[in-house]
């Protein structure tokens, strides 16, 4: 019954895949929650019992926090650029950059794009579907790696001098 092992393998694979997608969506939502307190009305949203229709859509909030956000965005950008100057391993670089970018995106969505001040149902209707759809594209990467394994030439002609791994 060697197939049992294959089935187990499939289960793990499917689990990893789904985990990637759902986990990604969840972490994004968590990020939004930190920025925009999305945790509140989810149950109420599902039951359709949200608060007043004009709830907070244009809640009066000062401009001050927008300046702070702007400053934070600039700061994170500088941080990212700084990373390029100290030579980190590529994977660490990628994870850090993506993490910072997600944080910046969350700030832009939450404050500049007002998502923090919209009704939670609005955010819940829009963001998870987008994130899941985008994360689904992760499925193409195993094939990218396969192409890598079968690549005929390893060094591109141009910039062969500066090539230093991918």
């Amino acid at each position: 019954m060697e197939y049992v092992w294959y089935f187990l393998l499939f289960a793990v694979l499917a689990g990893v895949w789904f985990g990637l997608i759902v986990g990604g969506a969840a972490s994004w939502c968590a990020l939004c929650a930190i920025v925009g307190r999305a945790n509140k009305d989810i149950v109420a949203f599902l039951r359709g019992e949200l608060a007043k229709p004009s709830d907070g859509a244009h809640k009066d909030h000062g401009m001050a926090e927008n300046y702070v956000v702007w400053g934070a965005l600039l700061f994170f950008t500088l941080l990212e650029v700084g990373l390029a100057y100290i030579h980190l391993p590529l994977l660490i670089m990628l994870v850090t950059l993506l993490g910072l970018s997600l944080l910046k995106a969350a700030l832009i969505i939450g404050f500049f794009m007002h998502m923090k001040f919209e009704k939670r149902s609005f955010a819940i209707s829009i963001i998870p579907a987008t994130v899941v759809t985008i994360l689904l594209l992760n499925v193409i990467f195993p094939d990218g790696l396969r192409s890598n394994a079968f690549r005929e030439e390893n060094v591109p002609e141009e910039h062969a001098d500066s090539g230093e791994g991918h």
Partner: protein
Amino acid sequence: MSVAHDVEEEHEVHVHQEPKEFIWKYIFSTDHKVIGKQYFLLAIVAVVIGLGLSLAFRYHLATYTPQGMFLNPDHYLQAVTMHGTILVFMVLTTAPLGGFGNYFLPIQIGAVDMAFPRLNMLSFWLTLLSFLVLIAAFVVPGGPPVSGWTGYPPLSAINSATPGMGLGQTLWVGSIAIFCLASLVGAINFIVTTLDLRARGMSLMRMPLSTWAWFITAIIALLSFAVLFAGGLLLILDRELGTSFYIPAGVVFGAKELNHKGGSPLLYQHLFWFFGHPEVYIAILPGMGIVSHILANFARKPIFGYNAMVYAIAAIGVIGFFVWGHHMFQSGMSPYVAVAFSILTMTIGVPSAIKTFNWLGTLWKGNIEFTSAMLFALGFVSLFVSGGISGIFLGQNAVDIYFHDTYFVVAHFHLIMGVAAMFSIAAGTYYWFPKMFGRYMNEPLGKLHFWLTFVSVYSVFIPMHIMGLWGHPRRYAGFEYAFLNDPMIPSMHNMITAAAFVAVLAQLLFIFNYFWSMYKGAVAPENPWNGTSLEWITASPPAFDNFGGKEPVVNHGAYEYSVPGAEKDYIMQTDPPEAAPHAAAH
């Protein structure tokens, strides 16, 4: 911003008068009803071209000899490619969603118009532009592309792969890109309209299933066309600017190595099928909605398991995004990924089974009237079962080893996505024609149309399954193989071609009936089929603002037929709550 200011801005959306000049009333109209008809007309023109092409290559296959081919292999593949592209994009995506959806979604939810009437017009004109660009491929030097409606690179990315052709392929990609934009704009409009403009009392669970289907379809379109757009963009870059997204190193044409390197044809396949599989549901989901709507009406029964139907539509929409890899089992894709895709593909059988089950349940203990619309709806159910069941073969990666790219696949997707969707379009037309034009379509002609179509399409596609079992690969312009030299194959091709001619001629009958009835059909009242949903409280055809200045208030679910204790056998959605004390609470 103050609330008062908000209200002041609200009104402008709906304040638009009916234009008087012909050009603003019928050509550049922002009225969703006119736009719906425009989409429908576009689909009719496209379907005539698409089916004409299919007759051409069917005739070619039936009369094939190596010496005297009706089409040469180039032209055969061009016909196949354009047939697929035109029907998938310009007919199956436009007619059920752009046509019926535009016309009836606002009416069924009690809205005056779409949320963004001008964007609605834009989406139609972009679709038309896309169609014209596609058709232009016929007249450019070299003609239309030969790479199939899927347009796999490198065949589609490199001109020297098919000598003599080039611009046609570029136009094809351009047309697809424009179509993506049009669908995007349309989808935004549908989603916003459905969520924001429902009349009072029209809760989500009171919406007719057709509205649900259009709504979910729009969401699918919103999320999937975006990826195709990116894929098409990169294909254009590969063709025109010499990038190599889809072209790996070491590709040789005419004994000369290309300069491209580093890409992968699988990347395109992923991006294409990420859209391509949801596209199948874009084509068929509105059909499911329309058919559910019609079955309930003519069986005089509430939908069996309305909630389950809604969840099934939504589930199909969601799962449809998780299964695209089943088109790529034999494409060299990672076999581990294939396993996951295969298992997920099977899960989509579950909501499909629910839908079939509930359609049968809706008929059960009903009082079935056999109008043309109902016949087509019943035919749809039959075709949906027949076409869906062969998906169980193709969704299994192991079985697909044998069936991939054979006639079995052709038969499968034509039955479910082509013919079944066509049946739903026909059913919808017979059903809603009285509302759209104030006249009935001719019933005897409609029944003749049904019988000719029903018999002929099965005669076309059931033999194709058998040829697929024999291993006949698709897109073959001739039979240069020993195993295709079996006398059974040409006789099957002859039979299929004969049936195809009948099927296409029957559609001409339908188109004739359509235009003839527009002027000569029997005059129809407001509610000719004793339906319950909001389109039946409007005039036939509806006023410019749909409800003649009145605003409907909804008190019932969409399918309250044969409610015990009620006077009539149907309770309209706007009937007062007292009209049906025993109706189920929604």
